[in-house]
């Protein structure tokens, strides 16, 4: 059978299994059907719910405006999928093309899409994490519990970690009139993702909205009472803080444990794949029947020095899943690379934050529109003389313009006549990112692999 005939046959009656029934899994399944795949399509997900959207969980839901179980994602009409919800995949046999499930079932595939995403990093001491009043926020259940607790009017909420999720939670708490303390190890909120210059704006915003923000401090332990309820937190500066609710926002962990020993290049930083979303095996050889998309994937991007990007971004899950699906049912030259320019948004303290490109690669930063003091601006990040990223506060409509600058490797500092640059903001200053080798939970983009700037992680061979 020629490759073309085999592909046609696969498209007609092949077997696809998708593991992970969230944004990437759903969009991948939809794109397979939209692309003409008529074979059997099974989607396995360990959450019992239909695929739902997560971004509202730290925004509308925590404001009490939307129920936690009301963010189910819309779907194409008549989407023909066999759902296996509420059951986890526990293993993968590459040689026999088989996924095993927690209930003992096994499902065979011709092509597999891995979309198991990430989960919230739990508080590091189990007994303390189990205290009544200690939360993380990743799932609809997490949001429902937290929302109920916030509605009961706790005297103080402690947010551990001022990344995007932590900052959005603090914002929601203030809007509900709750006292909130944010404890952040870095020098400012969002510093790992956006750098110190924008971090300083985020810090000012938090304080202006009444957040008790403490930077350069860590929470060392959580203390409960005899009944197992959270009472107070101990901080690294020796102080203690009474709080009835603590939300741990220390970033996410990739769901790759089920792939241990499978022979795929899967580990705590995700599953490595090529720009066509095909997974690498442990030898660095690309597979041709296993694809990866969403938060669990890390893949090289030519615009960013072919470094492997792990992106915890909504838009990446959508784009990568669509590319993976297309490539699953296409061959050779018809395949497409995932060349999406990273983008994400956040809404906090009434500000619409948008990012395009990879800010943590930025060495220098310049205000290209508006002014930092006005909370309405665009900053542009430069790397080796070209534009590598831009971040906008309440200037969403400019993001597309900056995307084009990044895609065309426009010179940095940018020089365009038609933007309202003002005195003081025109000279580039250091972007002020913390040392990437120090542990940080802030960034939603992680770079690894070849880097001319030595901004790379250490190679640690995995034990098979």
């Amino acid at each position, binding site marked *: 059978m020629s490759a073309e005939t085999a592909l046609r046959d696969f498209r007609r009656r092949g077997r696809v299994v998708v593991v992970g029934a969230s944004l990437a899994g759903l*969009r991948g399944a*939809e*794109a397979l059907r*939209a*692309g003409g795949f008529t074979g059997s399509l099974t989607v396995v997900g360990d959450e019992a719910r239909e695929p739902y*959207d997560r*971004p*509202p969980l730290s*925004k*509308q839901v925590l*404001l009490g*405006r*939307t*129920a936690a179980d*009301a*963010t*189910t*994602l*819309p*779907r*194409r*009409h008549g989407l023909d999928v066999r759902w296996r919800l509420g059951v986890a995949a526990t293993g993968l046999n590459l040689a026999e093309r088989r996924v095993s499930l927690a209930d003992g079932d096994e499902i065979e595939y011709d092509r597999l899409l891995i979309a198991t995403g990430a989960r919230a990093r739990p508080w590091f001491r189990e007994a303390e994490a189990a205290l009544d009043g200690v939360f993380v926020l990743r799932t609809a259940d997490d949001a429902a519990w937290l929302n109920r607790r916030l509605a009961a009017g706790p005297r103080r909420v402690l947010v551990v970690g001022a990344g995007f999720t932590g900052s959005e939670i603090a914002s929601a708490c203030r809007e509900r009139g709750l006292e909130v303390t944010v404890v952040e190890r870095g020098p400012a909120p969002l510093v790992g993702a956006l750098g110190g210059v924008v971090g300083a704006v985020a810090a000012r915003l938090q304080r202006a909205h009444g957040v008790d923000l403490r930077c350069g401090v860590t929470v060392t332990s959580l203390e409960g009472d005899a009944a197992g309820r959270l009472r107070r937190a101990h901080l690294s500066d020796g102080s203690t803080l009474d709080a009835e609710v603590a939300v741990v926002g220390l970033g996410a962990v990739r769901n790759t444990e089920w792939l241990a020993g499978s022979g795929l290049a899967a580990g705590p930083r995700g599953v490595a794949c090529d720009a066509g979303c095909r997974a690498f095996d442990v030898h660095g050889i690309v597979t041709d029947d296993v694809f990866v998309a969403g938060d669990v994937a890390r893949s090289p991007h030519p615009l960013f020095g072919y470094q492997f990007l792990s992106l915890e971004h*909504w*838009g990446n899950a*959508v784009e990568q899943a*669509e590319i993976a699906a*297309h490539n699953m049912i296409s061959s050779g030259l018809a395949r497409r690379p995932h060349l999406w320019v990273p*983008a*994400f*948004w956040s*809404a906090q*303290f*009434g*500000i*619409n934050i*948008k990012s395009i490109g990879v800010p943590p690669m930025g060495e220098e930063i310049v205000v290209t529109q508006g002014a930092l003091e006005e909370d*309405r601006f665009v900053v542009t990040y430069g790397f080796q003389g070209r534009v590598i990223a831009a971040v906008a506060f*309440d200037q*969403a*409509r400019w*993001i597309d313009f900056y995307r084009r600058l990044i895609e065309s490797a426009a010179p940095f500092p940018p020089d365009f006549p038609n933007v309202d640059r003002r005195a003081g903001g025109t000279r580039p200053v250091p972007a002020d990112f913390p040392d990437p080798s120090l542990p940080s939970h802030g960034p939603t983009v992680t770079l690894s692999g070849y880097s001319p700037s030595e901004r790379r992680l250490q190679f640690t061979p995995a034990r098979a």
Partner: protein
Amino acid sequence: MRIVVDLNRCEGYAQCAFLAPDVFVMHGQEALMYDPGPGEERSEQVLRAAAACPVQAITVEGEVLSDVR
């Protein structure tokens, strides 16, 4: 009904908030907070808002989702 807004695409023009104010609400100057599960009685409003969005950021259940390029 179920809806989702691609907030990477959304530019905060607020047409949706004008046409379906019970479903789409601006939070501050340009951050959009919407109800992802509005009641069926709002479907006409929602469809009108989706059609009016200048950057086609609003996806409504049942419509073709991924524009296959």
